[in-house]
């Protein structure tokens, strides 16, 4: 099929898709008139039941907790899958035909002092913000998923600053693997603990605290969110680290070739 035929085929299909969309939208309740029964029901009882003021976190880690276990394991599996796909094959050589590899005489420019200082200065605050987000799911629009990604960013700021060796040392694979397992397994274990206490899976059995939205409130919601934060941070360090390794190896090979 030539690109032109392909494009015509797409135009016809897209017109059909757009028609189906418009037909479907005609049957939706208008924007702003959502009649969904679950949202209002949860909003009505969430604070009394969980003492969490961050309702989205409460939905994720309490009402839909079982879904979120699966969601977390999707990320876990993706990180594992990437390690498998990007593993170095037995007969695979590091040489390749990319322009960057062929231009061996080309110098890799050193990271400028401004970038280095700025990124290193940002590492601390970024880590604190990530930690804060991961531990305040019960209070405000934060949670383990958001906090975990920002925690992982702190690692990659070290990479951006050009400190490859420090970066390598900061993420020993064994520690990252272990923390990912603790995050993912801990979430599932909290659920199983409830079953062991003859309660439903992921039942919120911890004390809920007295002040809605306080750090000590909301029982398992806060704890699960923190574990999710650890899991997400480790998964992202693994995922992006795997992709960066591809470049790092290439740069290391280039440097050895030029010296």
């Amino acid at each position, binding site marked *: 099929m030539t690109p032109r035929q392909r494009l015509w085929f797409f135009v016809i299909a897209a017109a059909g*898709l757009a028609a189906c969309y418009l037909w479907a939208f005609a049957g939706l309740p208008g924007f702003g008139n959502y009649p969904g029964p679950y949202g209002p029901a949860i909003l009505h009882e969430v604070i009394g039941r969980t003492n969490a003021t961050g309702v989205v976190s409460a939905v994720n880690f309490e009402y839909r907790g079982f879904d979120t276990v699966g*969601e977390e394991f999707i990320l876990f599996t993706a990180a594992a899958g990437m390690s498998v796909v990007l593993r170095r094959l037995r007969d695979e050589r590091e040489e390749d035909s990319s322009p960057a590899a062929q231009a061996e005489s080309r110098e890799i420019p050193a990271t400028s002092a401004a970038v280095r200082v700025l990124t290193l200065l940002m590492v601390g605050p970024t880590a604190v913000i990530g930690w804060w987000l991961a531990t305040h799911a019960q209070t405000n*629009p934060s949670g383990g998923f958001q906090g975990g990604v920002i925690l992982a960013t702190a690692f990659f700021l070290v990479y951006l600053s050009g400190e490859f060796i420090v970066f390598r040392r900061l993420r020993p694979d064994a520690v990252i693997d272990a923390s990912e397992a603790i995050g993912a397994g801990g979430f599932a274990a909290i659920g199983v603990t409830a079953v062991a206490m003859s309660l439903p899976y992921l039942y919120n059995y911890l004390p809920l605290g007295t002040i809605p939205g306080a750090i000590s409130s909301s029982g398992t919601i806060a704890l699960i969110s923190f574990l999710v934060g650890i899991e997400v941070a480790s998964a992202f360090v693994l995922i992006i680290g795997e992709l960066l390794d591809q470049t790092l190896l290439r740069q290391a090979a280039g440097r050895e070739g030029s010296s």
Partner: protein
Amino acid sequence: MQVFPFLVVAWIVIVGLYGMITSRDLIHQVVCLIVVQSSTYVLLLGVGYVTGGVAPYFFDISPHAKAVDPVVQALALTDVVVEAAVTALLLSFAVQAYKRFGTLDPHELAEFKG
């Protein structure tokens, strides 16, 4: 104007699909898939919006304030996580395809059978 957010959704899907069809680079194609998927965020948040509602966070406002639907917002979060996982895997496939065939052009890759 009641359907405007939903028209935006349809537009994002079709623009993203157009990008995927005409793409000449696997990385660009993955980005186009992200565009397609981001339409679901607009759809979910658009569906769950309640006129005059605030964000469903009651730390410093009355718990009885009118709020938008928290369930679809939680679904949007799930959506983001799945997208991150899908993107990560697709990008690693792109890396492997480049290693094996020396090109990222899907048209050239289609010529390598198997």
